């Protein structure tokens, strides 16, 4: 059995295990720390930055920081709530996120977070970048308009030899996530589906799959994101 650790989250005494990340420990204690790039069970990356919490006063990403005994964590302060909201607004304005025409609407974590944070009008101006849609791959469509560069696909999707099918290109504000043409041609159905499912937005789509799940029956159509973590202790 793993060593049990005590920590405080927004003033509440909590317990978790050694080597557990803060986000997971918080969830087990009934607290939702918003995340976007994080995928439970996969090595975290800390790319989106919305899970920033104050650990003993210092800003740390909850998804990458392992729990330590006696940690005092602040999560729902006004400062941090606004920080998260700002980051989500930045993502919304960076790409072209037009929800009504997006197949992922209702299953989109960015959209769900925007609702949860009551974002109506972002404080930043829309960038309206010119971006491509790659529709040449046999099983996948990559819509760069919607990509938030969370790196989930890069981290998770590998071929049977462990090679990367997705990778970053360039850097800074010119950065993109690219697909390997050769490996995408041979991608397994399972991997293609996984790529579609782990993409938090509608940037990776499965061909011939559009709107299989009707609007109204999608994941966030009736409940806000994160509610499942908060529900049990309330």
């Amino acid at each position, binding site marked *: 059995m793993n060593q049990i650790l005590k920590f405080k989250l927004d003033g509440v005494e909590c317990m978790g295990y050694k080597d557990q990340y803060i986000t997971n420990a918080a969830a087990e204690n009934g607290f939702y720390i918003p995340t976007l790039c994080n995928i439970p069970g996969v090595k975290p990356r800390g790319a989106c930055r919305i899970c920033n919490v104050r650990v003993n006063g210092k800003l740390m990403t909850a998804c990458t920081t392992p729990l330590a005994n006696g940690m005092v964590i602040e999560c729902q302060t006004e400062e941090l709530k606004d920080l998260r909201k700002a980051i989500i607004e930045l993502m919304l304005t960076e790409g072209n996120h037009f929800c009504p025409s997006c197949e992922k609407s209702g299953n989109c974590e960015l959209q769900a977070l925007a609702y949860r944070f009551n974002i109506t009008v972002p404080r930043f101006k829309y960038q309206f970048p010119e971006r491509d849609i790659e529709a040449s791959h046999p099983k996948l469509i990559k819509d760069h308009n919607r990509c938030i*560069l969370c790196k989930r696909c890069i981290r998770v999707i590998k071929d049977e030899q462990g090679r990367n099918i997705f990778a970053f290109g360039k850097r800074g*504000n010119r950065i993109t996530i690219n697909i390997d043409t050769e*490996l995408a041609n041979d991608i397994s159905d399972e991997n293609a589906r996984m790529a579609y499912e782990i993409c938090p937005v509608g940037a990776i789509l499965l061909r011939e799959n559009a709107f299989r799940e009707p609007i109204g029956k999608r994941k966030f159509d009736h409940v806000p994101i994160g509610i499942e973590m908060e529900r049990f202790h309330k």
Partner: protein
Amino acid sequence: MRNAPIIQDSAMIESPEIMPAKSKLQHEVSTILEHYQHDKTRLMDILIDIQDENGYIPAEAIDYLSHELNISTVDIRQTVSFYHFFSETPRGKYTIYLNDSAVANMNGRKAVSKTFEKEAGISFGSVTEDGLIGLFNTSCIGMNDQEPAALINGAVFTRLTPFRASEIIRDIRAGKQVEEMFVASYGDGNNSSEFIKAVVNNHIMKRGPVLSDQFKPGEGIKEIVKMSPEDVIKEVKISNIRGRGGAGFPTGLKWEFCRNAADQTRYIFCNADEGEPGTFKDRVILTEKPFMLFEGMVIAGYAIGAKEGILYLRYEYKYLKKHLENALQKIRKLKLLGKNILGKKGFNFDIRIQFGAGAYVCGEESALIESAEGKRGEPRDRPPFPVEKGYLEKPTVVNNVETLCSIVKIIKNGGEWYKNLGTKESTGTKVLSISCDCRYPGIYEVEWGFSVNDILDMVGGDDVQAVQVGGPSGSCIAPNEFNRTLCYTDLATGGSLIIIGNHRDLLKGIILNFMDFFIDESCGSCTPCRILTVLLRDKLKKIIEGRGVMQDLEDMEDWGKIMKANRCGLGLTAANPILTTLKNFKNLYLNKIQINKDYDTGFRLDEALREGMKASNRKVSVLENK
């Protein structure tokens, strides 16, 4: 295999063992791969060799590498496209990288770049049709005290003028070798030695323990062979030295953490990425004190229990390669490097040089490690820290060039001696790179605790509007703060001081350039660093163009706070050019904004229409008014 005759022999076609013959390029890449033992983690070296050989990295080479190393092409391109000096298209037989830093611009870069463009007949970012000349911008190349400067096929050209620019293009067209194009005599000190031969000057204006001539190779190592590694760390801790790269972490503590890590394979890196615009002291140390630096690495290796040291050197300083390799050879001969150093059994340590390929963020220690592993230089999440899990997942110490040199003196003269230099909190000396509007720009080694006023007196800086302390990531301070002192508790700096005279346009000439620099150099991983830097720069531009309102200033202040959510030092400080001038030079902003307006979109009808008007040969009143 291109253009090869089709083999008609059916027996050969059916036989699967027969591989198609290798092309010339594949042969070349094969040789390179053999040299690096097909090691994926040496991808940077492999790519650099391919780039140097061909002038670019051909798609065929990427395909071949992908096949041989069993990594996908998209993965290789992930590394290739990250670094500024890698290119998938030819960059010209002669590639001119003209520094585009703020200080270069303040010293007349524009006229030089115009001449280059006019004489070559192309604009920056392109290559002549015959493939002869490529013109490209580049971030600070560490020559701030002799700008405008350029790298041409790796050779440094300093103090360029429009006259020199046209001369250079003429020489290129005449088919001269780059070395034949130098006109002035070689620079001072080792710059004129047979292994460097560069028209670069050290400009050492003030020497201290690090830059002093009183250094004999082996003076530090002779001491440590008598000491235990723990005692070496103890001595360093007594000296209270902190990292000289800018972050200022106590060196002894870093070493101790690494020494105490469970894994027995450990590494010591010397960070010679020196990318902070305005910093050039490591270049001078590498030129003049390579023995001392390598000795510092040996001492660090001994202390932490590492067998291998790696000097991570920025690509801009490739002209120092032969010089540094020669120095390594020399100290190997002196038994100060290699097996059983100075006869001490089991004291084995060697050093290799790892080049970067143009990325400021690789000066951040975990990004540097990623880069050395052949990946894009994306800073890692912490914890774990490099001292626990660094290079190849092994405990790793990354120290700055100057830190490692100071260590040699600490070991030779004792931690107590060192502690008496500088101030109580900031012990020892600091090598400063001072440039721009002063009479004697160059390198000054001073004890910590000098005030900015003292510095200005020393370098002959009067009529000063501002001093940029610590490069763009540091702060821009006004005369009312010139009594502040250089030390870790007040004005901490990695060593760059840019002195900005009263005649300069601070916002347009310097701060805007700094913001563009961060936008170019961000790795793009963290959301705020990737996006907000651009939005803040756009706001600044709007204000400079006279379209700003009070709300823009408030927005910039508020938005600047979001940058604290970023992971690394670049992201955390990338808004500093704006935030520190907004604090210290508020009037400059207030003078630019429209006071009678609450709101302005920043949209300019004339600008938006300009292209269309030009194309249709029409004139509209809004355009004429401008």
